[in-house]
Every structure is written in C-alpha cells, then in structure tokens.
C-alpha cells in the first residue's frame, strides 16, 4: 500500500535525440552532459525535488544503460525515499504481448498501473531535453485555482520565431481555444514548453480513449491535447518567465552552454535556494598550471589546465595540455586536449582525445562561405590524430589518423 500523493511527475526520457547525432549514439538525450558537471535530466529532476514532488517516473526506451546507471537509486536528488523516489520505467512484456512505447501518450498509458498506486490528483508530464528552473508547485496552484483539466506551461518567444513552435492561442482569461502547430502566420507568441499538468482522472480518460483509437499516433501534442480541447475540456496556459532553452540540437546545446558564461547568467545555477543536484564525480579540485590562462570559462573538479581557455566549459577530468587552446567550446568528461592542439567552436564528447597540434572546428569569421559554418562535434572516445584538421560543422564518429607534417 502506497501513501497517497497529491501530485507525481512523469518524465519522458525515451527519445533518441537524433538531432544530437554523435552525442546520442550510445546514450539517451537526457543523459547528455550539460553545463560543466550536469546532465540534462538533472534540471527537471532538481525542479521536481525543489517543487516538492518526490515521486518521479522516468520513461526510458532508447539506449537506457547510461541513464539508468546515472539515476541509480535517486540519491543525488534526494529521491531515494521510502515510498516515492525515482523509478526508471522501460517498456515491458505483459500477458497480451510486448510493445515499445508507440508515442509519448502511449508511454504514459502503459504505466497507468504505476501512477494509480499513488492515487494522485494531478500528474505533471515533463520532457528530458530542456534547460530551465521552474517551480512546478506554482504551476500546480494555477491549475487548481483555474479548475482546469490541463495546464500547459507557455513561454513568450519573439514573434518572428513563433512559427518554429507549437503556439497556444488563448482567451483573455488564459483558457486555450486553439493549438497552432508551427503556424506560418502566428496569432500569438505563447509557445508550448511541453510541460503539462493534468488532473489525473481526466488524463486517464483521454489516454484510454486515445489508445482505443487506431488512427492515433499516441502523441500528447498531436493527439491527446487536441482531443481534450475538441471535447470542450478546460485547458489553460500558465505563463513562465525565466530562462528556458530546448537543447535538442547541436547548435542549441552549444548555445545553452555558452549562455552560462554570461556574467549575468540568467539561469544562475549557484542559487542556494534552487540547487541543481547532480551525481558528483569523486575527483580532487581542478589544478590550474603555471602556463594556464583561463578567461570567462567554467571549470570543474578533476581538470588539469595548462593551456589557454576562452569562453569554454570543461567537464570533470578534462586535461588541457601546455600550448593547447580551447575557444568557445564544450569539452565533456575525461576528454584530453594534447599539446599545441586547437579546439574552437566545437563540442568534444566524453573521453575523446585531440592529438598534439590537431585543429578542431573553425571560427565563423574564418569561413569562406558563412553558410557552411557550424559547431564541430567529436564523438565519445574518438581519437583525433596529431596535426589532423577537423572542419566546422563536422560530425566525427570514427578515429582520425595522424597527419605527418
């Protein structure tokens, strides 16, 4: 018997994150490192804990090994509680056969028994690819005071970008009258953040209806939400103010990391009243050597810096050797930048090695054609040989041999 929970969270973490290419070859998107010592999933999980939600189901499907290891018993987020806590929920086999999660709604549908054992009044649906700090309890209070069936968090995007988002068109009292998916001519700039609170009774009803509909793609945005709206359920938009970034692409992941280097960092991960919890590595403080020069960068424990850093983020255990230069780049855990190597506008994934004198990435101003420019990505464990050159926008998944001068 589980004690009743007023509100529990379900975190959709099964997507491949195919637009992160080499970075998600072996790990699910929510497990991708972010911000020097975090992984993307730390943000929704910390938000849950800081908002007083201590039961979180994490729906996993794609490459779950690293993610499952990372979640463990939930202790880093104080989620190793007696009844609630964090639960990895993979697809499973039942008496009527086995199914993968067909869509986001189906993933929740398949876990109705998990939700029911807490007998919740409300369920928060979260995704594992956003960087933000949000107090879900404020959103829940809004949901309750509006007696809504569903509340959707909305972010004010610039009008000129609104056509890239799912737009919520609202009446003056905040009730939604229309969903407009990537409209050519947007009527408003209220973008859906993919964060929903449902009254559980309603959600359960619509999940069951959705499952019974053979034409449905079993997706929240495409199927369940429109069905609720068409049936006349009360749906409201809750406006969120603060930093929010989707990190589903290489460019946005790089940008969101670079945002942290702004001295007036709008995310402020150092706020003691809203800590971002993470599984901390067991490593000594970082050492900055005699030849080092660190400018506007984030460096964490276990690093050895002897080269030059500018506008860069080093994760735990990264080595930057003498004469190496790292500019506007993200170097993920355990990677090594050897003597004289140059890494610029790049993401170097876990345990990759950049050989002596190699050059990774290009500055946008050095490009002949600016349209060819993009962030260079070196995949996890890849070895770039000495003096090799990796162009802008490259996606390196295989070792690159040494180049003799």
């Amino acid at each position, binding site marked *: 018997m589980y004690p009743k929970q007023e509100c529990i969270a379900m975190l959709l973490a099964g997507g491949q994150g195919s637009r992160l290419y080499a970075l998600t070859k072996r790990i699910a998107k929510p497990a991708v490192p972010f911000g020097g*010592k975090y992984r993307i999933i730390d943000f929704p999980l910390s938000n849950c804990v800081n908002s007083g939600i201590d039961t979180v189901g994490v729906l996993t499907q794609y490459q779950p090994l690293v993610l499952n290891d990372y979640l463990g018993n939930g*202790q880093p987020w104080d989620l190793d509680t007696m009844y609630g806590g964090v639960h990895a929920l993979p697809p499973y086999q039942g008496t009527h056969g086995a199914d993968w999660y067909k869509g986001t709604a189906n993933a929740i549908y398949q876990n109705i028994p998990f939700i029911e054992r807490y007998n919740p009044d409300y369920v928060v649906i979260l995704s594992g690819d956003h960087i933000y700090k949000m107090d879900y309890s404020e959103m829940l209070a809004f949901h309750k005071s509006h007696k809504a069936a569903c509340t959707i968090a909305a972010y004010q995007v610039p009008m000129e970008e609104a056509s890239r988002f799912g737009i919520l068109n609202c009446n003056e009292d905040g009730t939604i009258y229309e969903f407009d998916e990537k409209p050519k001519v947007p009527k408003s700039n209220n973008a859906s953040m993919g964060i929903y609170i449902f009254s559980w009774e309603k959600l359960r009803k619509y999940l069951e209806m959705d499952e019974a509909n053979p034409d449905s793609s079993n997706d929240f945005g495409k199927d369940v939400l429109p069905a609720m709206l068409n049936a006349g359920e009360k749906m409201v938009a809750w406006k969120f103010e603060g930093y929010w970034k989707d990190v589903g692409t290489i460019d946005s992941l790089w940008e969101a990391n670079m945002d942290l280097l702004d001295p007036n960092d709008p995310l402020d991960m150092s706020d003691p009243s809203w800590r971002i919890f993470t599984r901390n590595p067991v490593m000594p*403080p*970082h*050492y*900055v050597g005699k030849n*080092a020069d660190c400018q506007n*960068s984030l460096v*964490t*424990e276990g690093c050895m810096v002897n080269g030059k850093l500018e506008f860069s983020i080093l994760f735990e255990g990264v080595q930057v050797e003498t004469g190496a230069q790292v500019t506007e780049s993200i170097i993920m855990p355990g990677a090594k930048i050897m003597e004289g190597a140059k890494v610029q506008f790049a993401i170097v994934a876990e345990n990759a090695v950049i050989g002596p004198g190699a050059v990774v990435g290009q500055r946008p101003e050095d490009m002949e054609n600016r349209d060819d420019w993009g962030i260079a990505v070196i995949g996890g464990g890849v070895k770039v040989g000495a003096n090799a050159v990796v162009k802008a926008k490259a996606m390196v998944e295989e070792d690159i041999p040494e180049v003799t001068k």
Partner: protein
Amino acid sequence: MRGNNVVGIIFSNMHDDTMQQVTNIRTFGSVPFGGRYRTIDFPLSNMVNSGVNKVGVITKSNYQSLMDHLGSGKAWDLSRKSEGLFILPPFGNGNQMYSNRIEALDGITSFLRNCNEEYVILSDCDMICNIDFKKVLDAHLDTNADITIVYKNGEMPDLGEPVVLELNSQDKVTDIVVGAKKGEKVSWSMGYYVMKKAFLQQTIAEAVSRNRSNFVRDILQRGVLENKIYGYRFEGYVGALDSVQSFFRVNMDLMKWDVLRDLFNPMRPIYTKERDEMPTRYGLGSVVTNSLIADGCVIEGEVKNCVLFRGVHVGKGSKLSNCIIMQDTVIGDNTVLDYLISDKDVTFSDGKAMIGTESYPIYVSKGSVV
C-alpha cells in the same frame, strides 16, 4: 576480501593542540584540507578502499562539525545495513574525559567486544596520504607480528611527539625512541597500527589495570621487549600536519604534479561530503596560475600558488598569492593577500592588504570580517 576482516578505528581528536587556532572550533579530523576535503577523509577513504567496511570514529570534544561532515557515512559507502560507520563519543568514567590514547581505547571496550572482525587498524587524522592498508595487513600476516607500525623512511617532519623506529633488515622493530630532530633521516612512525583485535583488547585491559597511560611508552616501547613488532615501510607521499606552518606547506605540496597524482590516485579515490556546487567561473581578465581550485568559486582577480576551497569569491583587481582560502570566503575588489590562511566564511572587504611570510602565514579565523 580479506580486508573485510578488519575494523578501522580513527582518533579524530588526537593532535588537536598542535593547530589550536584551526582546531579551536572543530576536531582535528574536521580540519578543511586540499580544497574540498577534511583531514579525516584520508584515513577513512584509505580504509574503505582497502576493503574495510566497519569504522569507528573516536571523538572527544567539538565534534559537531565532524558529525555534520560524516553524516550517515554515505559518501564513503559506509551507510550500511550491517557494519558501516560508527561515531564513538566519549564514554564511561563518570564525568571524566579521556586524556590519552589508552583511556580512549578503554572507552570503546564495548564497541570492540561487539566487533566480529579479527584485526584492527588504528589511525589518526594527521597524515595526508593514499595508502593501501591491504598491503599492510598482508605484511602483518606474513611476519606473524603482534603489532605492525606503518613508517616512512626519510627526513623527520616537525612532529610534536615523534616516534622513531629502529629496524633490522627484516623490518622487525628492534628499538623505539621518542624524539628526533627535524630533518634527520630516520624511520618515523606514521601512527598507523595494525594488530589483532584480541591483542589490542588484552593489551589495553592490562595497561588500564596497571595504571599505564602512555601508548607509546607502555605499549609500543614495552612491546619491543615483550612482543613481536614489525614495521611496514610506506613509499608514497606523506604530508604530516602538526602545526599551522606544516598545514600550510602540505596544502602547497598539492601543487606538485607527482604529489597530486599519488594522493588522488583514481583507482583509490579520496571521498568527501558532496556540496552540489556549480563549476568554478573564471571571469574575463582573471589571471590564475599554479593553483588548486574547487567547485563553486568565482574568480575575477589574480590567483597564484593558492588553494581555494568551495564557494570562494575573488573580486576584480584583487591579488592572492600563496594563500589557502577555505569555504565560502568572499574577497572583495582590489584586496592583496599573501601567505595567508583564511578559515571558512571570512569576508575581506575592498582594498585591504594582509601579508604574512612563508614561515609565519597569517591565520584569519572562521567568520571574521576584515
């Protein structure tokens, strides 16, 4: 694993008097060290990495910060259903507090009685090193000794109560002398002792009943004649903490690459309590060289040859050299600090200058406002 047959005993208060300024408000074991550690992290992690899964920590006074640090022992994997971490507050003898090691061990008689382990390791918190106690135990079993003392051969550090061993070619201890000159080349005891639990219980009971009170004189020196005492020679780096000066020096040793590598061997990590700080932020125009820096710092000034603990802020135009700055200390703009140890939560306002010397670093106590 054979290590599981060993219980660790850590004396967290021994040597408190050697660094009085720093230990006024805490036990020796909870003295901050090396940017993110407390001294007790070293013996505790060494024991855990050697397979020991039961450790008793003997406390005496001012141990609140120690308990806060240790918590349930989770950070050392010592929060267990069976065995794990035991904090052993002063016990017995009416109102009297133990005054020496023998009385302290007598005070944990019932703890020892309830241990099923066959061997014990005794340790203080004044040695900063990464040692594999499994090897010490192997040597202990090979020589069939009653007591094995871990020693270091080399220049005598500045210890308050130095114990010097004379050994034959088989590492059997032939004599133990107290006192040696600093810098002399000797085999000095690191204060780690391995013995059978039953031997310890019997020896302590006997010492107490005969009113013997000095561990070195009445157990070790007497033991040379009556028991088999062997030495185990430790070859790695050891930083001995015995004064504010040596505390300063050993922290500075961490800037040497080989010391850092040896002490923080990734195969035998040193564990400590976590704090969930964000990575350290280097501002534009910051100049940082040859320094050891923990998470959660914000550095906008110049930092040279320093150890910065978690959450330290260094303002614009400030110049720090040869400093040890403990947790959450805030240094304003244009402040100059040299040869200085700042305890936790100190505030240096803008435009101050404090300059010590290598042989006499300035110490600023916890929570001060300068």
